[in-house]
């Protein structure tokens, strides 16, 4: 078992693919069918492109804001590919890749960052919670989802993502401990992308790894190369099996890097050096996965060129749709506060409608 062989206290990091896509850990190389491998790669590529475009749109004043994923695609896609459709995803706010892989549409995701709540109304059967802004609070939701799955004896786990910075939060701690106490089938992925906005990992916590924080909860904690999609897949696959067997949660530190800014309003040049970014670009998760697929004869440069053309069109078309979408109506804004509009709020709505009518009349 991976979780037994890699000790975070010794800083042992689990890896399958090296930065050039060579399998360096044959023992744990997962068997994934070609279709899935391609879905994984294509989603990573889609997210990479959608990410770059989102930043551009925002710079043009056409997108509200955006939390870039660049560099973290493997840390997100590996886990989701190892799960089942019925599993729950409780994301933080930087999980575009995970969300798309699990059934959220790009249109919905864009609509959200465009500033419309409809972007969080996912399709039926898509077990994904909306983007979660308050750091750490999503883990509690995952613990509850997992508890419910277990009590109802479902073949279902809950996966949740958090950042390195988020592990400092009290809610992270409470929820991890809570899930562990009940052996709830939960998997927590910490994307250690080395920064929380401007604050480097070293100032966030004194522990040498994030994975070792699992020891506080009496659960396995594993340090994984987060830019290695196969390693992320394998480790989550194992965690899911443990979870379903009733053995409780797993904490996985995905060691990775945010290549872009924190959000569109952030200027990373203030707090980090170009060389650092350049060094991490060499470890790009897409480069190594692509090499692996080419090696497996599942992919080629020709296919890549074709894919890029498709992605370009998809992303552009999707954003056009989003830009053409109707803004929330007055009903939207008032009617979802409660299942039924209470009297006082009805009055407020009517008064506001009357006011709007009056102002338009003028």
């Amino acid at each position, binding site marked *: 078992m991976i979780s037994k062989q890699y000790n975070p206290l010794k800083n042992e990091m689990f890896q399958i693919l090296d930065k050039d896509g060579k399998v360096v850990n044959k023992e744990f190389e997962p068997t994934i069918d070609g279709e899935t491998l391609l879905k994984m790669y294509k989603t990573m590529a889609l997210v990479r492109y959608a990410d770059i475009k989102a930043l551009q749109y925002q710079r043009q004043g056409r997108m509200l804001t955006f939390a870039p994923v660049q560099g973290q695609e493997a840390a997100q896609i590996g886990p989701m590919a190892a799960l089942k459709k019925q599993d729950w995803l409780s994301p933080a706010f930087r999980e575009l890749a995970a969300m798309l892989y699990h059934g959220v549409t790009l249109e919905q995701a864009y609509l959200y960052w465009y500033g419309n709540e409809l972007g969080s109304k996912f399709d039926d059967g898509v077990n994904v919670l909306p983007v979660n802004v308050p750091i750490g609070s999503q883990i*509690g939701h995952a613990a509850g989802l997992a508890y419910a799955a277990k009590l109802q004896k479902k073949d279902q786990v809950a996966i949740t993502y958090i950042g390195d910075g988020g592990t400092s939060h009290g809610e992270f701690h409470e929820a991890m401990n809570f899930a562990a106490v009940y052996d709830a089938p939960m998997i927590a992925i910490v994307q250690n992308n080395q920064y929380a906005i401007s604050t480097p990992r070293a100032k966030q916590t004194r522990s040498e790894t994030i994975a070792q924080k699992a020891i506080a909860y009496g659960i396995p904690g594993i340090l994984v190369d987060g830019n290695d999609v196969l390693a992320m897949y394998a480790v989550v696959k194992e965690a899911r099996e443990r979870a379903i067997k009733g053995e409780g949660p797993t904490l996985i530190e995905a060691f990775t890097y945010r290549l872009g800014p924190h959000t569109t309003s952030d200027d990373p040049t203030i707090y980090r050096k170009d060389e650092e970014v350049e060094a991490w670009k060499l470890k790009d998760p897409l480069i190594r996965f692509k090499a692996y697929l080419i090696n497996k004869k599942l992919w080629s440069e020709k296919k890549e060129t074709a894919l890029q053309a498709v992605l370009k069109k998809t992303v552009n078309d999707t954003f056009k749709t989003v830009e053409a979408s109707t803004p929330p109506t007055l009903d939207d804004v008032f009617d979802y506060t409660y299942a039924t509009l209470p009297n006082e709020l009805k009055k407020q709505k009517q008064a506001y409608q009357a006011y709007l009518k009056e102002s338009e009349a003028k």
Partner: protein
Amino acid sequence: MAEMTLLQAINNALDQQMEKDPTVVVFGEDAGFEGGVFRVTAGLQKKYGEGRVFDTPIAEAAIIGASIGMAINGLKPVAEIQFSGFVFPGYNQLVTHAARMRNRSRGKYGLGMVVRMPYGGGVRALEHHSESLETLFAHIPGLKLVIPSTPYDAKGLMTAAIKDPDPVIFMEPKRIYRAGKQEVPEHEYTVEIGKAKIVKPGKDMTVVAWGAMLRETQKAIKPLEGDIDIELIDLRTIAPMDSETIIESVKKTGRLLVVQESVKTLGIASEIISRVNEEAFIYLEAPPSRVSGHDITVPLPKGEHHHTVDEKRIVHAVKTLAQYAV
């Protein structure tokens, strides 16, 4: 029918709903094995097992956070916060998530969940065991807030809360947990959330109270009955508030007194008074007024009486208001 205290009525509602609906789960610090420090959930673990009735770690954020996840994944969580003064660590989950998940997801994830908590003073307790925190929930759109004052209502409101599709904060006036018994039907029934109750009609003055203050008010106005014909309203649901019932009453009486246990500034009374101003201004014969705690920390027991709204202070406030003449 059976004679029950308010506490027993809540236990009865929980028991009945757990029996009827296998998705109802009950949990909190010490709420499982020993049935809570007040024994509100006593007997439930034995009957429904450790999966559905359980003790939690001391972690209010996780308790409420997990409730949200459970509500989304097919359960009906009824979480207990041991005392309302310890809800703050879980307040983030209530405000930033419980209140908003329905709207955030444009209706996809409504949260049917109940968060119970004993509240209120007059029980000779330590710090943080005596507050009245209604405002902190009533100010947050998306939360409902219910406070029963009788065993009958306690059962009916708890049953309604469990069936409600929205998150309901259920504050229990612990001072009257065992203050008296009332006939409570054994069958299932609900008391509508969002409706105040005219406890006693009257035409001289409207008095609004809830929770433990209702009994206090009843005791206070009893001896005044011949002199002042009071319309007494039990608010029951603090949010969404049934202002209609109050406003209709004030239109008739012209005078309003709100009896509130909490501190004065921004207590529920301030909102009631504002709404009455907005909709019944011309009917007012005297300034709508409030009798309440002071804007101080609830003192430890040796000084608590200085803060408590009791019979005498209510009598004084009623008389003052009755005597008011422009």
